[in-house]
């Protein structure tokens, strides 16, 4: 739902790196976004197209890599990937623990890399 402020941040970071690397055109940007976030890729691209007009990143394509939700069992340290639909029913396949987990990944908002000329 907050695609707009997030997109502004992405653009600022991308423009900064374009300057640092002395490139004149950003072709693509790869984001890593956790499965737990509700960001809509299509909306980010729309906002990005709008905000990036007249910048080095105009027309850049956003590629989104989803990062899976991973929990660690706090009893036996086993790490397991969990689908969003299964979040209320997590059970450790190793020790059958049902109620003591830590979130390891799944809430990332990360700019991994960009292609530029």
């Amino acid at each position, binding site marked *: 739902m907050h695609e707009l402020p997030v997109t502004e941040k992405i653009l600022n970071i991308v423009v900064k790196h374009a300057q640092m690397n002395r490139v004149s055109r950003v072709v693509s940007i790869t984001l890593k976004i956790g499965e737990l976030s509700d960001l809509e890729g299509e909306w980010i691209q729309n906002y990005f197209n709008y905000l990036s007009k007249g910048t080095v990143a105009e027309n850049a394509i956003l590629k989104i890599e989803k990062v899976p939700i991973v929990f660690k069992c706090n009893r036996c340290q086993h790490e397991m990937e969990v689908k969003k639909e299964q979040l209320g029913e997590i059970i450790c396949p190793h020790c059958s623990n049902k*109620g003591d987990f830590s979130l390891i990944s799944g809430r990332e908002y990360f700019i991994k890399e960009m292609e530029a000329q």
Partner: protein
Amino acid sequence: MTMEDIKLIEVKEDILADNDAAAKELRQRLKREKTCLINLMSSPGSGKTSLLLKTIEALKNDFRIAVIEADIDSLVDAEKIAQAGIQSVQLRTGGSCHCDVSMVTKGLAAIDAGAVDLIFLENVGNLVCPAEFDTGATKDVMILSIPEGDDKPLKYPLMFSKCHVLLINKIDFLPLSDFNPKLLKERVKRLNPGIEIFEVSCKTGQGIDRWVDWLKKTVSDYA
């Protein structure tokens, strides 16, 4: 242009890093100033303002309290709070779907934060965006009300996984609904084993005392 012209630049930057760093700093500042900031989150209509009014009523002789209002159309809310004799600030969130540290810092500047013990932030009403933006608060508290249903942890897991306290409000509606508190608690505890859960009604006052006791303890431990 040919493909050779294109170079790959490693960016490796966290989009939320600025806000996260500012939140950490704000938490430390509040700790130094011995001001406890409670970030209150829920869907619209779950009972944030009602809970604040009940809580203020119970605690106004124990602590110096202030309220930062960020709920989008909550000018009414700020007025209700002011009528309860409490300092309150209305944040202009510009229609934003959440509060971030820069907004909270503006709110703090408008109240005499050094002269209060306890500040409540009534966050923007939704269960998605406020979960992703750290406000710098000392504790995160959420409300789920009975009419919203017991499946909400499955739909908004991030919110349930980050809060220190869950208040199940409108418990007076329980006899009329198919909400299963036991199932809800199981679902929440799997995401967040350390969370404190209180069943309350801002209408009848049921359970408010246990929540207020938790607050008293939290503020006292902090000071």
